[in-house]
């Protein structure tokens, strides 16, 4: 393929990556893909591709479409606490932009300098700060997207409150490139914390840490982060406090009163915790459980050979890392279906789980939505492991 003829830069590789400079270029890529019957996977920073990796390895994706060149902050309105930016902006750049006006951005993703806004939204990933702010999807105010036919469609707006029209941006958030190319999005912002403090309690057993977490959850504390992390046999309970200075001081004292003196205490945010979700590699499995079942679910993940486990007790979310997974998914993981959420799984696991993909609740309307917005199946990314 001659890049000049195509009208957009194409980088060789398997599959090749198109890096259009602007929206027109993105439309050209989609037109080209339609003419040539190519299947396209939109990508941001390319960091959450694990979910559609099977497609890539099998050659099911013909073309990766990067939105990296769309890296303009469209509008930051400090007085309104809103930000509108193009999909290719890095989360780090956006966080720096809004910090100048005293705002913070959620989610606080791992390695924000490499994560793009479009990729973050497409993956629908929330950060550890969801404990305070809730999941990312709650703060997407509107979007502009390009559909497979090249039409640009907007939903929502740039306002903190707005119920005009269907919330299609909620549908696109977490759609993993299966419905559209995200071009631009508006986000609600939060006050940049005036003070931050990080407390860590360490134990060898999970139960006392869960008790601590329960006591903290029953209190007036409104932490930014509360996470349990097990590494090398030690369970660490992390509590990140952030907000007005006096407020943080008050919450710190209350936390110590409820949970005892911490093993470690830091001013500011923990230097590594936010990146933990993307360090270490290996197979990642996510699951969820109500507070009373966290210990039991942890044992299930342990039985799969989990090396590291991260739990967000308030969100009821667990994530396990398995360094050397068995070639096929162990029977327990099949039993856990669909209570676990695959993240970075080996290809063979996807294949083995494919027949169960039809058990996903509400699969039929999801497929109808996919067909309605992308009738020719131009977008190759796969939202479910296996192809239902």
């Amino acid at each position, binding site marked *: 393929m001659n890049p000049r003829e195509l009208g957009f830069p194409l980088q060789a590789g398997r599959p090749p990556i198109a890096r259009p400079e602007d929206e027109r270029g993105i439309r050209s890529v989609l037109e080209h893909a339609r003419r040539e019957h190519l299947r396209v996977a939109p990508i941001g920073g390319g960091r959450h591709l694990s979910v559609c990796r099977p497609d890539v390895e099998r050659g099911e994706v013909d073309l990766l479409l990067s939105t990296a060149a769309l890296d303009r902050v469209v509008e930051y*309105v400090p007085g309104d606490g809103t930000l509108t930016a193009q999909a290719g902006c890095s989360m780090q750049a956006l966080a720096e932009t809004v910090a100048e006006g005293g705002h913070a951005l959620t989610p606080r993703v791992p390695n924000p300098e490499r994560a793009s806004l479009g990729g973050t939204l497409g993956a629908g990933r929330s950060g550890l700060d969801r404990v305070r702010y809730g999941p990312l999807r709650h703060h997407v105010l509107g979007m502009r997207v390009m559909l497979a036919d090249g039409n640009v469609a907007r939903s929502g707006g740039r306002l903190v409150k707005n119920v005009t029209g269907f919330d299609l941006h909620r549908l696109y958030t977490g759609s993993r490139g299966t419905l559209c190319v995200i071009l631009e999005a508006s986000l609600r912002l939060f006050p940049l914390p005036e003070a931050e403090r990080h407390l860590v309690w360490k134990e060898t057993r999970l139960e006392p840490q869960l008790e601590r977490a329960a006591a903290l959850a029953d209190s007036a504390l409104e932490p930014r982060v509360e996470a349990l992390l097990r590494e090398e046999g030690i369970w660490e309970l992390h509590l990140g406090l952030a907000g007005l200075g006096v407020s943080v001081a008050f919450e710190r004292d209350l936390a110590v009163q409820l949970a005892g003196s911490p093993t470690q205490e830091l001013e500011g945010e923990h230097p590594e915790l936010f990146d933990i979700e993307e360090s270490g590699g290996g197979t990642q499995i996510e699951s969820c459980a109500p507070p009373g079942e966290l210990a039991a679910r942890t044992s299930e993940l342990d039985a799969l050979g989990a090396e590291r486990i991260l739990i967000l007790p308030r969100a009821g979310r667990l994530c396990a890392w398995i360094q050397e997974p068995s070639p096929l998914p162990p029977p327990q993981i099949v039993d856990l279906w669909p209570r676990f959420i695959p993240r970075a799984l080996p290809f063979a696991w996807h294949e083995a789980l494919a027949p169960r993909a039809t058990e996903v609740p509400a699969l039929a309307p999801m497929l109808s939505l996919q067909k309605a917005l992308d009738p020719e199946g131009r977008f190759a990314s796969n939202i479910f492991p296996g192809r239902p």
Partner: protein
Amino acid sequence: MHESLLRDLRAVVGEAGVITQPSARAAYDCDGLTLKRRLPELVLLPRDTDQTARCMRLLYRAGIPLVPRGAGTGLSGGATPVEGGVVLGTARMRRVLEIDSERRLARVQSGVVNADLSRITAAQGLYYAPDPSSQAACTLGGNVAENSGGPHCFRHGNTTRHVLGMVVVTPEGELLDLSDPRPDPWGYDLCGLFVGSEGMFGVATELTLKLTPLPPVTETLLAIFQSLDECCEVVTDIIAARLEPSAIEILDKLTIQAVEASVFAAGYPQDAEAVLLLEVEGHEAQVSETIARVEPILERHRCIELRRARDAAERARLWAGRKGAFGAMGRIAPDLYVADVVAPRTRLREIVRIATDIATERGLAISNVFHAGDGNLHPNISYDRRDAEQVARVLEAGDLIMQACIERGGSLTGEHGVGIEKQKMMARLFSEEDLAAMARVRAALDPKERLNPGKMIPLRACMELRTRPIPAPSPGDLE
């Protein structure tokens, strides 16, 4: 309606669940948008998901359109009956199915009244945060369909942030179980899509809702002003200072006077031009520090008096005044047109002025009560619907206010929905492509447009899909 279909429907919901008498059906001929009325062919009141699904299957096969209805307090015509259509009400679906205080969630039938849920969960130290002013009457199903807001949604967000799951009956009468409250959706965020879909994707029969712990400390302040402009400026400055009260509401002079003359009298000073109702909640340090930072802003904008509710009873009275404001307007004129526009929070004062000018230029009485913290304004126009010429002026003023908001980066509705009231304005806010994408999504979930047909999306966008939408009720064939 065909006799055999009626018989089959009666077999599902029983005699008490079918309303056929025209006089009884008349109670369902409109929602809070009383300008638009149509008598439904039939009203069905199922008791649960199963009955709802069976009714909907029968109606689907018979090709009959359906309008879901909660309490009918909606203000945009979402529950207005459609031509040849049946109204399916959730008034007999009022069971609270489960309260799980450990997981902080409730499972309810969709006909449960908003305020009842918080009343029931208070003993566990929990409440349901979204608090529309109509909360004593409106249903949680209606709240979900409209993505309703309320004063405290400034801090807690509209309904969508509080819906963890739901059971939906599709237009064909199939069950869609989205009730598993996982932290992130499996696949697409269907719940997020259903919230705010104005009864056009399915009928929600059961809801899984997030409960919020009651705050340890709550302070309610009433700041009094001799200028509405200054009052608006305070809000803009609070937002700019990134302070986080839980509610920031404004009532203007005409509203204050109407409230004080009504059963909702809250002790607002009748000679004030505007009052700002401010609530701050959280732990002690958070609350006192926030108030300490708000006070200089109030002073800067010439707040003439700051009152602090001394106890829960006084707090409740201050809120009763705010929440009863729409009802109190009945003292000004028999009817009330409630606009629901949104403006960027930096332009509050400007929009309030424009709305006031638009109404006064047309000889209409306008009062303002609004969720100022969210930039969500309710310029209310009092009128008499028996005066056709006045009605025309009211509708013109409404359109112009919406247009002014669009031109300033605002939007048509912050919480009441589009329905039929704002349908034609949609084409001014959104492009044809935007509307076509919405129509495609609608077609994926309700291909035959059986639920609330002809609403929200202007006809042009529907035609793009080459479907033949059932005509929306037009003023000519209503009433």
